């Protein structure tokens, strides 16, 4: 049983001091300043005046920026969907692997996840470039077909795989896939396996068991996997920056340019907080879904 803090004031205050100080001064304060800035406007070159204006938010809803928000949503949503489709069979296989194999399979998923994000993104550049591995492989196939048929396919045209929206989605799936697999595994592993066996015994196929038994029961875990993948994907900066083209900017890239290049901090602040609000809304929605799922089970 927890102790009331009054029974050991000294210890309580000592233990609370550092984390509370750090959280307030080095996390809440910086974000609060950004929040205040989002209601301010540039005053001269360096100063920012707090005027309580909503114009930054209004600016963020102008068609140009609204478009970028919609696009970021699309990209993050597509990434999440692909991660779910690709990751689900993997999570299923890990769940039903033998005890000996299981840690190794999980390690297989986790290792890339521990590797530096920048390095992983960089590695993709070499694969996707015009003279990258995929195009080289395609060219080899192309040329050998050409050799056999006497040039029926014509000159090889490398696919444009880098610096476009395809590359961004590909990169985000590559980077975020472990985020999806791990919560899915943790949800599937908690399922009562005898129910699955019952369903299969009673004549349902694997696909039907999946949709009628597994997904309804693991719903909350699937939702949390979706959330854990969607939030970082929505706010990703590095992947669209390095792999994307001129038209694949996402919200984070606009925020960065407002702070570092355009020097319009109030507007950048408003965009940042819109992203924070979206994150909180996503978490709240997930919380409501989870509570509902729990009620259904109870």
């Amino acid at each position, binding site marked *: 049983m927890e102790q009331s803090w009054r029974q050991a004031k000294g210890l309580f205050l000592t233990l609370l001091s550092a984390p509370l100080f750090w959280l307030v001064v080095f996390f809440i304060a910086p974000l609060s300043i950004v929040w205040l800035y989002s209601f301010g406007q540039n005053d001269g070159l360096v100063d920012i005046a707090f005027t309580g204006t909503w114009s930054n938010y209004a600016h963020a809803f102008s068609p140009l920026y609204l478009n970028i928000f919609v696009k970021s949503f699309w990209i993050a949503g597509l990434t999440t969907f692909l991660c779910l489709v690709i990751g689900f069979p993997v999570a299923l296989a890990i769940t039903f692997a033998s005890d000996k194999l*299981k840690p190794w399979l999980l390690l297989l998923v986790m290792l890339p996840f521990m590797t530096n994000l920048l390095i992983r993104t960089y590695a993709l550049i070499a694969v996707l470039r015009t003279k990258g591995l995929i195009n080289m492989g395609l060219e080899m196939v192309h040329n050998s077909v050409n050799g056999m048929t006497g040039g029926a396919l014509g000159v090889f045209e490398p696919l444009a795989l880098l610096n476009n929206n395809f590359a961004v989605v590909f990169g985000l799936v590559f980077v975020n896939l472990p985020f999806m697999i791990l919560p899915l595994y943790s949800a599937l*592993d908690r399922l009562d396996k005898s129910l699955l066996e019952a369903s299969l015994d009673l004549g349902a196929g694997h696909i039907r068991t999946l949709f009628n038994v597994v997904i309804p029961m693991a719903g909350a875990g699937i939702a949390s996997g979706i959330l854990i993948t969607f939030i970082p994907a929505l706010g990703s900066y590095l992947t669209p920056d390095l792999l994307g083209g001129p038209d694949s900017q996402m919200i984070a890239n606009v925020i960065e340019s407002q702070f570092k290049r355009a020097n319009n901090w109030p507007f950048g602040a408003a965009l940042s907080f819109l992203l924070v609000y979206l994150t909180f809304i996503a978490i709240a929605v997930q919380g409501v879904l989870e509570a509902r799922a729990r009620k259904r089970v109870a």
Partner: protein
Amino acid sequence: MTTAIKPRKMPPAPLEYLRRWPIQAWLIGVTIFLYGPLLTLMVFSFNDSRSTTIWKGFTLKYYQKALTNESLITAFGNSLTIALCSTILSVIVGAMAAIVLWRFRFGGKTLFDGALAVPIVVPEICMGVGMLVFFAKVLPWPQGLPWPLNLGAIIIAHVSFSFPFVAVVVRARLASFNRELEEAAKDLGASDFRALMDVVIPHIKPSLIAGALLAFTLSLDDFVITFFTAGPDTVTFPVKVYSMVRFSVTPEVNAASTILIVVTVLLTFLALKFQGSDALTAGHGTEKK
């Protein structure tokens, strides 16, 4: 003479998904997807050519180049120093937060608990601009401080996003602690503080190590927040690699990246050694029903 009964290959049981070929093929495909790019990166760091796609022969010259590139070495040293300092601070602050939440009832506990989760969920870019503004307007970090003091701003930023993760790991471990042990220590005359240091801390030691390795990896991995906090003379390894990548794709970057990948893999294995492989299955892999 008895003939040995040849074990007949059993068809897979209904739930042995791992023995079905579509799932096997899928797993292999995902493994290639996840590892292919990284392995190519590592292989081509040994390539005797500027090209990172055509194999020309084995060489170590890009390692030599990377290891004699002074700014790259400085950046690497900065990254390790930052990771080390922020890990020590994160473990202390994170463990304190975990213990205070586990041990005490107090007004505003839910609020504190909730606020502690915010750094984990808030998008990196937002935290990055927060740090940029904070160190530009509120606490301008003096320029030209001697090393490693000039890294202070980045270390502070890294602790801010790492210590809540440490707190989560430590709290999970504290949940399995039998509170009666601490009471027994106090009954035997130990003060609150002694009981904490001699009874609770030894119990959570594995989680402290795990938390430390997590904080270290997070710090070493971070690009976005550092990008917004770093000044021109405080370049970290990811920031340096970023500027090199923007410039061109060279085997030198491959060599430097390979070194970092090897470091990360070693750290991960070390973490698992301390926690046991149960840590991977989060305890529910081996439990008997």
